[in-house]
């Protein structure tokens, strides 16, 4: 039986001996090197794209632009709104414009510098609160608000009237990169049966496969995505980065292609943690019992949807924290801007709200002269509690035990703090 035992990591031996193969550790005879041209602008129209000089450079096997994509030019974990290669409208800094496959990395790099792009710059918006306004530049013609989730429970107005103390504040969190230690890399080739094989570090093998098939306009059974050893991910490998690019280059050249990002390109290519602008109003009685909570979350989705709706939903669901509040009003929005797109990162929207709701708890405690432990203890979820979304917590609610254990470890005299 293995339950209750610490087992050695099964792939550990390979990792301590340097034998574990991360995607950049694969090589194939005759392979080409792929590189990506990215835009330095956040919002623009492409007027002209000239790849002729790059194509005629010795050692360049292929230059690929949006026109060369055999299938659909879009990808995304919920909506396929991120372009594989921009056709005409740049919506975010670092959008990919063209790809090069060449006999060496140096040649590929040089070819990128020979591609001429003429742009018309367009107005951009970088703050989701601005992007919600009527007169904001539009990232998408259908409007910038990607998602809105209202949660209503009880009657907050009445709750605030009954409150003895009310604390009201604004909080915001910043954009964060996962900075997994292994920058993106991939190797793709056509196998002996004519199928496309891609070795890559990914969190979403089957979805990568679906989207590659859609982009290449081939059947899903013609694509094999093999997950190499993954050098950290933390959510940042859920969206596609070089998977589609590498596959396209192989499919169009019929040769093995390797792509390896520098750290800088890694930062440019993958998602980020959502900056969220939060407004909180929290009321409680003089005994320290929460009675009303109103919260607004405005999350910066960046230009492309990725997981934004699901993430802002999670923020909204966690708005009260692990505390029972009878009257709740929450509005969570995911809003497009021309910033880099945001997506999954450890916590998935649950990491930002605690900064606000826990600060509110401390401030309420201070107003009432209560110990920070006491106010939390008096409101903590326990078995049978009802959350703001009406869920009854039936089992496994370990909060009070955890609070006690931590308080004791701190040396607090909990008997006096209940």
């Amino acid at each position: 039986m293995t339950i209750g035992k610490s087992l050695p990591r099964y792939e550990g031996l390979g990792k301590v001996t340097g034998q574990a193969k991360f995607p950049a550790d694969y090589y194939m005879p005759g392979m080409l090197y792929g590189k990506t041209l990215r835009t330095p602008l956040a919002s623009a129209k492409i007027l002209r794209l000239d790849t002729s000089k790059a194509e005629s450079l010795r050692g360049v096997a292929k230059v690929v632009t949006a026109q060369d994509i055999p299938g659909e030019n879009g990808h995304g974990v919920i909506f396929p709104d991120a372009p594989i290669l921009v056709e005409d409208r740049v919506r975010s800094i670092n959008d990919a414009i063209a790809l090069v496959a060449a006999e060496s990395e140096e040649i590929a790099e040089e070819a990128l510098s020979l591609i001429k792009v003429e742009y018309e710059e367009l107005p951009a918006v970088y703050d989701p609160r601005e992007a919600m306004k009527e007169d904001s530049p539009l990232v998408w013609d259908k409007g910038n608000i990607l998602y809105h989730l209202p949660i209503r429970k009880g009657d907050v107005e009445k709750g605030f009237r009954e409150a003895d103390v009310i604390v009201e504040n604004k909080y915001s969190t910043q954009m964060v990169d996962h900075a997994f230690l292994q920058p993106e890399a991939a190797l793709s080739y056509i196998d002996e049966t004519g199928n496309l094989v891609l070795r890559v570090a990914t969190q979403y093998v089957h979805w990568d496969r679906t989207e590659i098939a859609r982009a290449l306009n081939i059947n899903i059974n013609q694509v094999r995505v093999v997950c190499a050893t993954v050098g950290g991910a933390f959510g940042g490998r859920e969206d596609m980065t070089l998977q589609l690019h590498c596959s396209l280059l192989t499919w169009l050249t019929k040769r093995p292609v390797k792509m390896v990002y520098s750290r800088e390109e890694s930062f440019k290519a993958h998602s980020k943690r959502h900056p969220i602008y939060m407004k909180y109003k929290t009321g409680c009685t003089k005994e320290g019992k929460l009675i009303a909570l109103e919260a607004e979350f405005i999350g910066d989705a960046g230009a492309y949807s990725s997981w934004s709706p699901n993430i802002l939903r999670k923020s909204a669901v966690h708005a009260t924290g692990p505390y029972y509040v009878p009257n709740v009003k929450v509005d969570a929005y995911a809003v497009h801007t021309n910033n880099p797109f945001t997506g999954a990162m450890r916590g998935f929207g649950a990491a930002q709200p605690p900064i606000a709701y826990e600060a509110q708890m401390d401030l309420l405690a201070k107003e009432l002269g209560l110990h920070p432990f006491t106010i939390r203890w008096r409101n903590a979820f326990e078995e049978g509690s009802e959350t703001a979304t009406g869920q009854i917590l039936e089992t496994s609610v370990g909060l009070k035990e955890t609070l006690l254990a931590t308080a004791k470890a701190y040396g607090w005299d909990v008997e006096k703090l209940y």
Partner: protein
Amino acid sequence: MIGTKSFEAIVNGEQVKLNIPQNLRLIDVLRNYLGLTGTKEGCGEGECGACTVLVDGEPYNSCLLFALQVQNKNILTIEGLASYNNLHPLQESFLEHGAVQCGYCTPGMLLVAKALLDKNPNPTREEIKVAISGNLCRCTGYSKIVDAISAVAEKGVKR
């Protein structure tokens, strides 16, 4: 076109002789010419330590060295630390203490740890932290790595 030059060194105990472009980094020679892909690139600019190798017993970032700078030196990469069936005590200890997660920092961590213990077989936790301070790990939170290294130090194992 950049000219080539002859490069000689001892890599993991074996004499190596190659003709290489003069501007090649040590990491590229190891990975692309010698197939020693256990040496990892995390940043390419001396920040992360994933590319650490030992040059005459001292840890170096192989992304910051031209191969020709280590002409005739003795180089140890992760592949030379031990064989599959005969692990170095540090490798065993890393596995035992859960100091390995994704494994991308692991080769570099093991090599700086070896360099430390070779010089100072009984380091304090503080000394261990200083020794690994040039190596980033995004997964473990470091404490298990420090545990793994100090466990070897306490056993007084030397190799």
